[in-house]
Structure formats: structure tokens, C-alpha cells
């Protein structure tokens, strides 16, 4: 059955958190409650939290927002989470989720979408590459705080 993409609802949150915990092996219920408060409940302040549902089950989710003028960069759509239940992969669910959030960004007049990934996460890197994303003119930097 083809998954339908829609805005997240409060009742989806347990399944979203379970998908994340299955993939990351790190349950974080407090985090998901906070994300729902900030991004849930439909289009909110240029923020998106969408889920893919098939046969009453949540198969995946995507979260992102519009970001403006970070270090002088014009507004862009920023995707910071996308996950598909391992058993539901290779069926186009991730592509549909990404298409849906990009459509949301387009409606807000955004013409560029970005994300940031761990370079050893080959699975998700390959997914974004297969969707046409290329290296952006930015370099992520970090430092260990002492």
C-alpha cells in the first residue's frame, strides 16, 4: 500500500519515537515531546513535521524548517531529520517524505534545500545523493569544549 504523507498528530508521536529508537538504538522520549511542541500541529512558523502513513501505521517521518540569513546565507529549507522504518524501506517512502517537505518549502517561496549529515552515515548520505542533493558551499566545524 502506498504511504500517504500528512502533518504529524499527537497520536503519532509514540510510533515516531519508536522508529527513531529502532534506528538509533537510543530512546529519547523527552526530545520527541519537545520536537512535537515546536514543530508539530501543522505548518507552524515555517516549520514542518510530516509523517508517512500506510494501513494506519507510521512508516516514516521528516522534520525541517525554513532558516533565514545564517551567516549571511539567504533563506533555505533545512531538513534535520528523516527516517523510514527499516521494514518499510526501498518502497519510495523516503522519497515521498522529502518531496512533500520540499513542496512545503516551495510554497513558502524557498528555492534551496539543505541538510547536514554525519559523513560516515553512508545510508542516509546515499539517499540524499540519489535525490539529487550535491555538496553545499559550507564546511561544518566543531570543537571539543574543555
Amino acid at each position, binding site marked *: 500500500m502506498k504511504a500517504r504523507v500528512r502533518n504529524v498528530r499527537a497520536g503519532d508521536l509514540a510510533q515516531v519515537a519508536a522508529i527513531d529508537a529502532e534506528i538509533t538504538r537510543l530512546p529519547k522520549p523527552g526530545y520527541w515531546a519537545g520536537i512535537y511542541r515546536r514543530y508539530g500541529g501543522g505548518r507552524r512558523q515555517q516549520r514542518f513535521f510530516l509523517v508517512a502513513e500506510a494501513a494506519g501505521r507510521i512508516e516514516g517521518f521528516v522534520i525541517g524548517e525554513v532558516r533565514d540569513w545564517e551567516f549571511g546565507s539567504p533563506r533555505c529549507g533545512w531538513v534535520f531529520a528523516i527516517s523510514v522504518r527499516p521494514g518499510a524501506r526501498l518502497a519510495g517512502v523516503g522519497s515521498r517524505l522529502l518531496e512533500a517537505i520540499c513542496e512545503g518549502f516551495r510554497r513558502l517561496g524557498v528555492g534551496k534545500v539543505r541538510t547536514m549529515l554525519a559523513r560516515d552515515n*553512508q545510508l542516509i548520505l546515499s539517499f540524499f*545523493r*540519489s535525490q539529487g542533493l550535491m555538496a553545499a558551499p559550507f564546511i561544518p566545524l566543531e570543537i571539543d569544549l574543555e
Partner: protein
Amino acid sequence: MKLQKNTLFALYSVLESASHPERQLSAAEIARKYGISPHHLAKVLHTLARAGVVESVRGVGGGYRFAGNAKRLTLMDVIALFESIGAPARGSRRRQAAGIAVERALESVLAEIDEIAKATLRSISIATLLKLMERQRRR
């Protein structure tokens, strides 16, 4: 970053064969298209065939056919058959023993660049590169 000739020839061959998976391409055909030596290319194709990336079809009209999974085979998989990206830089023994700070710092920066290059090459499948070529053709 510069790839060795063999590696480039291998990538040409893989992309050519993967873009026409139903066809058998001869080494001469690919060599002609890219202006390279058929003899040189035959060796490259032999390595690709041994790795199961292409299969050799004998007989009249024989040649090489793509045998991999274009969605799973990455640029890094092909490159690794011919060269090693980011092999550790070797300073002289005396300098290594002295642990010169400049050398260590430079090595860590160069290693950072290698890691980014490897991650990029590992993230791009043959299917993704074919899609990219198609998009660039349409522009």
C-alpha cells in the same frame, strides 16, 4: 584530487555499461568513445570482470555487460579496485621519530580532506551518477 588513468578508464567503462545494461560493449567501442588505448582498457575491464562489476560475454557480438547493482555499487567501490584513496602520508623515519608538530598538524588536515573525499565517493552510487549526468544533459 586526481584519479589514476586506470581508475578513470574503469569509471568510464562502468558508467557506459550501466547506462546500457542490456547491451554488450566491446573494449574497442568504449576505447574509441573516450580516445584511449583498447589494449590498456582491456586490462581494466579484466579487473572489473574479476570483481563481478561487469561480465564478459564471449562469441560473435561479445563484449562486456554491466553485472553489478547500479543502486548499490558506489564510485568508491570501483575506485578501490584500482587505487587507494588517502593512503597515509609517510614522512621520513627521522622526522616521524622526532614527532615534528608541523608534520603532525599537516597530516591531520590532509587526513580530514581525505575523509571528506572518501565519504563523498562512498555516497554516490552508479545510478545516482547516471541521474546526475542526465540532469546535466538536460540543462
